[in-house]
C-alpha cells in the first residue's frame, strides 16, 4: 500500500479529513524548506504538496509566481528539490510528499531518471499542472514503474468523459480545482462544489481533495464537509511572504494548526 493510500485509509477509519498544505520549495530560501515541512506535519498536515519552482508558472496567480521567483533566485532546481525531500525523509518516514509543478523541469531531467531519483528519496506522488491525461501516458509509465502516484487536477469545466479518463490514470487522490482561475484567485463557491462532487464520485473511487481559493479555517471546514481533503496553497505562501524570516516557520505552523483544529471540530 502506498503512503498516500495508507494515510487516507487511516483518516477514513478515524472519520477525519485530510489537510494538504502547499509550499514552494526554496521559498523564502532553501534553508527554510525542510524546517517548514516538519512544521506543517507538526501542525497537523496529512500530505505535503511541495512546489517545484518554474520560470513560467502559467496556472498560478501572483502569490505563487512570486514564490517561484524567490526560489529560482536562490538557484533552486528539481535536483535540489529532490535533495530537500531526502533531507526531510531522514526524520519523517510517514508523511506523503507530492511534488507539484510544471512538466518541463522533469522533461529536462528525463522522466525515467526523475522517477528513479524521486522514488529513491521518498517522493510519493507527482502532479504536473500542464500534462493532461492526453499527453501523460508515456511519462506516467515511468512514474508507475517506480511506484509514484500520478495526481491529476479536475476543474469545474471538466466534462464527464474527461473525468472518466482521469479516473483511469489517477492514483493516490484527485485534486479538484474549486474555481475557474489561477491559484490564489477570488473566493470559492461552496454550492458549486457541492453540486460537482457527486458527478466526480460517479467516476472516481479515489479520495477527492479540493483546493484553490481556500483562505481561512472556516472555509476549510465547510469544504471538508464535502470533500475528503482540503488543499491550501496561496494563503500559506502569503504567510511565508509576509513574515519576517525568523517568524516564517512559527507563523505558518500557527496558521495551519488553526485550520487543523477547524477540520477536526466537525
Amino acid at each position, binding site marked *: 500500500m502506498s503512503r498516500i493510500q495508507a494515510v487516507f485509509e487511516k483518516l477514513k477509519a478515524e472519520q477525519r479529513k485530510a489537510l494538504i498544505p502547499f509550499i514552494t520549495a526554496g521559498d523564502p530560501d532553501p534553508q527554510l524548506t525542510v524546517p517548514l515541512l516538519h512544521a506543517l506535519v507538526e501542525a497537523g498536515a496529512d500530505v505535503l504538496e511541495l512546489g517545484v519552482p*518554474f*520560470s*513560467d*508558472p*502559467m*496556472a498560478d*496567480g*501572483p502569490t505563487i*509566481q512570486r514564490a517561484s*521567483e524567490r526560489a*529560482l533566485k536562490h538557484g533552486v*532546481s*528539481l*535536483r535540489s528539490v529532490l535533495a530537500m525531500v531526502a533531507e526531510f525523509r531522514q526524520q519523517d518516514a510517514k508523511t506523503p510528499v507530492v511534488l507539484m509543478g*510544471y*512538466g*518541463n*523541469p*522533469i*522533461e*529536462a*531531467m528525463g522522466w525515467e531518471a526523475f522517477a528513479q531519483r524521486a522514488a529513491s528519496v521518498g517522493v510519493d506522488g507527482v502532479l504536473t*499542472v*500542464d*500534462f*493532461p491525461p*492526453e*499527453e501523460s501516458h508515456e511519462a506516467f509509465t515511468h512514474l508507475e514503474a517506480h511506484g509514484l502516484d500520478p495526481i*491529476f*487536477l*479536475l*476543474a*469545474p*469545466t*471538466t*466534462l464527464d468523459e*474527461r473525468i472518466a479518463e482521469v479516473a483511469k490514470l489517477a492514483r493516490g487522490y484527485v485534486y479538484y*480545482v474549486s474555481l*475557474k*482561475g*489561477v491559484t490564489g*484567485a477570488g473566493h470559492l463557491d461552496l454550492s458549486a462544489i457541492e453540486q460537482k462532487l457527486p458527478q466526480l464520485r460517479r467516476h472516481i473511487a479515489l479520495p477527492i481533495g479540493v483546493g484553490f481559493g481556500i483562505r481561512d479555517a472556516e472555509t476549510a471546514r465547510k469544504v471538508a464537509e464535502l470533500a475528503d481533503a482540503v488543499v491550501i496553497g496561496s494563503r500559506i505562501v502569503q504567510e511565508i511572504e509576509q513574515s519576517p524570516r525568523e517568524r516564517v516557520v512559527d507563523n505558518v505552523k500557527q496558521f495551519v494548526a488553526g485550520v487543523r483544529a477547524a477540520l477536526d471540530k466537525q
Partner: protein
Amino acid sequence: MYNYPDSGGHFGPYGGIYMAETLMPAVDELRRQYEHFRDDPEFKAEFAYELKHYVGRPSPIYHAKRLSEQFGGAQIYLKREDLNHTGAHKINNAIGQALLARRMGKKRVIAETGAGMHGVATATVAARFGMECVVYMGAEDVQRQAPNVFRMKLLGATVVPVESGSRTLKDACNEAIRDWVTNVETTFYIFGTAAGPHPYPMLVRDFQCVIGNEAKVQMPELIGRQPDAVIACVGGGSNAIGIFHPYIDVEGVRLIGVEAGGHGIASGQHAAPLTANAKVGVLHGNKVYLMQDENGQIVETHSISAGLDYPGVGPEHCLLKDLHRAEYVAIDDDEAIAAFDALCRFEGIIPALESSHALAHALKIAPGMGKDKALLVNLSGRGDKDMNTVARIKGITL
C-alpha cells in the same frame, strides 16, 4: 504525402496539448468548432470576403530590382504583407479567429503581443466586430513599441503591461493564458502565432496559408516558375509557416526560416532555438525546441526585434527541421539593421525589424547565386513601429 498534425495535434514528436485541466475543455471546444467551420462554405466565403475587402488582399509580389542589382546575384522578390491593413501578416489570422469567435458567441477577445502587430490586428478586428478586447504585452515591449501601444488604445483595446519574468512576449503569453483560465466561458483567446496548444498551430497556419497560396499563383505569373527559395523570419513562425506550407510538396523550392541571432548564437543572447539546436521542451501548451537551462527553466532571450524575442517556436517548424524540408538559420541584430537600411535606401520600403531578418539572409546568399535565380522573401510587416528602436540604435533622439 505530408499531412500534419494528427488528431491530437502532434507534428511528429512535437506539438500536442500541454494545458492545465481548466483549459482543456475550452481548447477542445475550439478544436471541434474549427473542424466544423473550416470546410463550411459560408465561413470560407466570409473569410475570403474580409481578406479581400478589409485587409486588401491579395498582397502583391514586388521585384526588388535595384536591391538585387546592388547585391549582385539572385533576384529578390518581396511578398508584400507589409501592405496589408494594419501593416503586417498578423491580420490574416486575427480575422479568421475573430470570425470563429463570433460563431462561438464570444463577445470578449484577448491576445498576447510582442512587437504589437498581433495586438494591433486583434484590436482592429475587435473594433470591426464590436468585441471587448484586452491585449497583454511585456512591459519592456510596451516601452520599445510605444506607437503600437497607442494604436491599440485608439482602437478601443485595453493594453495590460506585464511586469513578471523577462517582461517580454513569453510573459505576455503566460498572462493571457491566466486571463483565459479565469474567463474561459466568455472569452476567446486570439493566439498570434502558429504555436501553443492544438488546434492553434494548425488553425493559425491555415489562416496564414493565404500568403503562400497567393505566392504560388503570383510567382509563375511574374517569372514563369516558382522561386528557388522562399525565405521568412521565424519567431513563433506564423508568417513563415503561412508561406512555407503551400510549398512543402513542391520540389526544388528551398524553404529557409530565419531566426533572431541577437548578439550572435555563440553569445547565448539570441532567440534562435532551431538554429542553436535547443533542447526539446514544453511551454505554452506545446512540445517544441525550447531555449532553456540545464534544469528546464526557460531562459531570457534577446533580439532587437520584439516580435522574434521568444524562447520557443511553432511545432511544425520543429518537424520541418527534423525532416530537412526547411532549413533554419540565424541573422544577428547588426545584420538585420543593415538589411533594414538597404531596403529603405534602395527600394523606398521601410520593413519591420522582424522581416529585416529574412531579408538579411536573402542579401547574404543572393551574391553567391546566379542572376537567373529567384529568392522570394516574405516581407511580413512594415517598419513604422520600429522608428524608436532604430533611432536609438543610431544614437538619434526623436
